[in-house]
């Protein structure tokens, strides 16, 4: 080792040499490093250009090494200055601006150049490659002017460019020479699914299309295909491939083939010159994906640092497309061939496709589209080269189907006698559940629910049922960590709600696609939940999906066991008038409504209304000034009141007036589950505020706000949120509390369960203690109500959703014979 540092010169400042230096600095400080970079920039992550194009990231986000990093390591960085000559016998390089640098070791990392098809017009302004930040900026600038972009090349880069330009608002056509997209990484089935997905996003895809020329006088105006078709375009992006940039090495007399030839230590034909990156040809291969380039970087660094036996070896690299929502994964070899076995799992409805390729009982390739969760698992098997014959039967279903660790049985559940009732809703005992599991060979909670009905209603006994399954099945059953929303997804409600906000998902198909639903259209459990989350999270933006609502919310009445409906008009604060009562009586007579009942929420229920009578019934009630009481809704139901200071000798405040105000402010809002309020005029609690979702207890000095009561399957008294002095504060606090529940509750989770989950202290801190938060929540609630306070009855009477209420046809029997 000498005191004098050796001179290391690097030509190129891309990702491969950047990574090489990181490794080198970890193990050696022998070198004084000089970098010449043709691009006037520091080292940035080229893989992330697509997110920059699509607007998901900015240049600043993708910088790998900032200016500081170069300074810290004493690197001399010449930006925007390219090397024009290597004088090997003098160990010198010469730059365009005339700088001469001596080296002891030289690393050539000149990367690759985009291949521009030499057709007429390919040099016109408006024809871009997709290689570096300048290209990306050029595309972004072009997209701002709008119009149509033609992307030539349906490979990885081309499709990422197409998707990005589409997101930037351009019309996009992809021209691809081959019959299917990404034919090097995907088989035809996966290529087809990908094409369908892109087309559904409005990207036009033309396969087997050969570019004849690019048309335009001063700038690009269109692309002409060999078959004579002409596509107008204001931007053409060529993404047909890359060519290793070997000019400099070739002129220096190094051995060059397709790329700069190196041995497995990354050394070129000159022992003092190494090469890394896309410009290299090693073992007869050139590489364009980052993983092998990083492996080259590591090997080169080790040899620069000192004697090493590190060697570059070829390995299959998985391919992923960086287009949000297009999930595909491919690795290894998937051509058909002698001695190869395919295992394929297709689900056309879901649009998923999985294929693994085996040879000699080893996995040699995998192509996944739509469901890529197991990509890494397959790759692991490919790398390890393990014999997979034992799991051949279930291999295609993925890692989740390969069994798991043992379960620690719950001693308490094990100790229960067989006649212990587990599911109170359905009267199911432990013995019945065990019998169902063993007789029918059930292994999943969903099956146990289906067959035994245990935990199929309110679900509060789910943990017990899972415990029983654990005891009965032993190692065959693993109690799931987090409960999926339904059979369509393993994601929990909480996860889904977070992702809807985090990823800005604004439609049910978007949620299902992005969160990898395992069914095409969801089910009667998840669709109403997703619809609610989207209604609550994107007021004014999301269009309520009627087909994802339960019939009660779709026809604004409660379905009864005989298929008739019950109708409940709103009576704000439980107050009514002789005129309203007369109108209700008239409606009951006119439509032969068999049952009229006073409800627990202080209003009147008309039961047994025929579906086709709903609209005329509502029209008559509307005419008398009444609106829907939303007695069917996962939303605000009633605000029950007592007569307060108006009449009661104990009343301390105007509880009736406050109840009416609250109901007028809250009606129309959707919430995770039904929401019932009460305002009681004194602590005697005649309005039963202390078992409501939210209650107000009037006292001499103001109002106590309580919440989290339950008087259904579960009975519990409310918990105090806090005390306020004025009606205005009551209104603001209740709106804020409701909004917090709306934003974080799980579908069908009553407010008491929500509060149990979040913690009463936490909710008090957010909604009561923190005045700014309280205001912000209340304001969001007020905004949401702008869109929610529409009487659905009046809308239907005016003709909305008319198809719900009348038959498509009424046939006469003769015609049917």
């Amino acid at each position, binding site marked *: 080792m000498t005191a004098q540092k050796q001179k290391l010169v690097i030509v190129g400042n891309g990702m491969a040499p950047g990574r090489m230096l990181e490794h080198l600095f970890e193990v050696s400080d022998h070198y004084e490093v000089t970098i010449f970079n043709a691009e006037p920039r520091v080292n940035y992550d080229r893989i992330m250009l697509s997110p920059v194009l699509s607007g998901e990231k900015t240049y600043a986000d993708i910088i790998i090494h900032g200016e500081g990093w170069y300074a810290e390591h004493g690197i001399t960085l010449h930006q925007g200055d390219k090397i024009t000559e290597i004088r090997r016998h003098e160990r010198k390089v010469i730059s365009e601006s005339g700088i001469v640098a001596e080296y002891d070791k030289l690393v050539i990392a000149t990367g690759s150049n985009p291949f521009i098809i030499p057709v007429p017009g390919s040099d016109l302004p408006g024809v871009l490659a997709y290689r570096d930040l300048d290209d990306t900026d050029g595309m972004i600038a072009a997209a701002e002017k709008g119009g149509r972009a033609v992307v030539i090349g349906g490979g990885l880069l081309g499709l990422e460019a197409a998707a990005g330009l589409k997101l930037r608002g351009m019309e996009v056509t992809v021209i691809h020479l081959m019959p299917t997209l990404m034919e090097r990484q995907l088989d035809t089935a996966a290529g087809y699914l990908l094409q369908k997905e892109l087309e559904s996003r409005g990207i036009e895809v033309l396969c087997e299309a050969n570019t004849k020329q690019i048309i335009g006088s001063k700038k690009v105006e269109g692309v002409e295909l060999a078959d004579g078709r002409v596509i107008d375009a204001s931007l053409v992006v060529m993404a047909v491939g890359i060519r290793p940039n070997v000019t400099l090495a070739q002129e220096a007399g190094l051995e060059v083939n397709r790329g700069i030839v190196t041995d497995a230590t990354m050394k070129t034909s000159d022992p003092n010159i190494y090469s890394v990156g896309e410009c290299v040809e090693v073992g007869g291969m050139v590489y364009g994906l980052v993983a092998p380039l990083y492996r080259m970087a590591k090997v080169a660094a080790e040899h620069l640092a000192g004697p090493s036996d590190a060697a570059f070896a070829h390995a299959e690299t998985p391919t992923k497309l960086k287009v949000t929502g297009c999930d595909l994964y491919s690795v290894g070899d998937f051509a058909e061939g002698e001695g190869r076995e395919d295992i394929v799992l297709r689900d056309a*409805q879901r649009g998923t496709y999985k294929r693994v390729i085996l040879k000699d009982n080893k996995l040699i390739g995998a192509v996944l589209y739509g469901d890529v969760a197991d990509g890494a698992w397959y790759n692991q098997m490919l790398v390890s080269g393990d014999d997979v014959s034992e799991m051949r039967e279930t291999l295609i279903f993925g890692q989740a189907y390969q069994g798991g660790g043992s379960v620690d049985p719950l001693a308490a559940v094990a100790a229960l006698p067989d006649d212990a009732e587990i599911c109170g809703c359905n009267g199911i005992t432990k013995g019945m559940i065990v019998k169902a599991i063993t007789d029918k060979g059930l292994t999943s909670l969903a099956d146990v629910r289906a067959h035994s009905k245990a935990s199929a209603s309110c679900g509060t006994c789910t943990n017990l049922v899972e415990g029983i399954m654990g005891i009965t099945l032993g190692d065959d059953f693993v109690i799931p960590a987090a409960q999926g929303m339904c059979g369509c997804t393993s994601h929990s409600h909480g996860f889904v709600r977070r992702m809807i906000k985090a990823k800005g998902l604004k439609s049910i198909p978007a949620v299902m696609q992005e969160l990898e639903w395992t069914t095409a259209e969801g089910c*009667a459990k998840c669709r*109403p939940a997703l619809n609610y989350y989207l209604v609550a999270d994107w007021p004014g933006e999301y269009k309520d999906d009627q*087909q994802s609502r*339960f019939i009660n919310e779709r026809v604004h009445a409660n379905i009864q066991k005989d298929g008739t409906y019950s109708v409940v008009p709103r009576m704000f604060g439980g107050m009514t008038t002789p005129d309203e009562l007369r109108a209700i009586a008239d409606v009951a007579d006119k439509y032969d409504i068999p049952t009229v009942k006073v409800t627990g929420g202080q209003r009147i229920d008309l039961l047994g209304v025929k579906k086709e009578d709903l609209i005329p019934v509502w029209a008559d009630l509307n005419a008398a000034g009444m609106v829907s009481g939303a007695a069917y809704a996962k939303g605000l139901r009633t605000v029950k009141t007592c007569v307060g200071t108006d009449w009661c000798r104990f009343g301390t405040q105007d509880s009736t007036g406050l109840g009416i105000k609250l109901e007028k402010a809250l009606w129309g809002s959707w919430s995770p589950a039904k929401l019932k309020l009460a305002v009681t005029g004194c602590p005697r609690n005649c309005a039963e505020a202390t078992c409501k979702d939210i209650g107000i207890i009037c006292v001499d000095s103001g109002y106590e706000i309580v919440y989290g009561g339950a008087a259904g399957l579960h009975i519990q008294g409310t918990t105090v949120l806090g005390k306020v002095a004025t009606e205005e504060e009551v209104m603001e606090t209740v709106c804020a509390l409701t909004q917090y529940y709306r934003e974080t509750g799980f579908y069908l989770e009553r407010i008491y369960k929500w509060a149990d989950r979040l913690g009463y202290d936490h909710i008090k801190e957010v909604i009561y203690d923190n005045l700014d938060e309280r205001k912000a929540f209340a304001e969001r609630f007020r905004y949401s109500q702008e869109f929610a306070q529409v009487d659905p009855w009046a809308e239907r009477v005016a003709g909305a959703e008319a198809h719900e209420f009348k*038959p*498509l046809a009424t046939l006469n029997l003769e015609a*049917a*014979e």
Partner: protein
Amino acid sequence: MNMQSKTWIEVGTLNDIPRQGARCVKNGEMTIAIFRTTDDRLFALEDKCPHKNGPLSDGIVHDGCVTCPLHNWVISLETGAAQGADEGMSLTFPVKLDGETVLLGL
């Protein structure tokens, strides 16, 4: 189902039926629900769940099935069979499209 002697009867147009929804045809005492899926396939079932006669036309339509609004039985639109662990059948009827016209086979 009397496939042999069926007559095709015009009952309306495709657009009368919402996607992922249903409309009913009254045929004397019987009500027949005609379902339309996301990809515009049509299916006809008697509007009666085999469980407790719930109106299937009021259910949520998903993945070739409808979930009954009363007790969440899931019925296959194609076969009328209850799915999963439940057992039962709803009557099915042939239905087809002639252009935009919906024809029900009775």
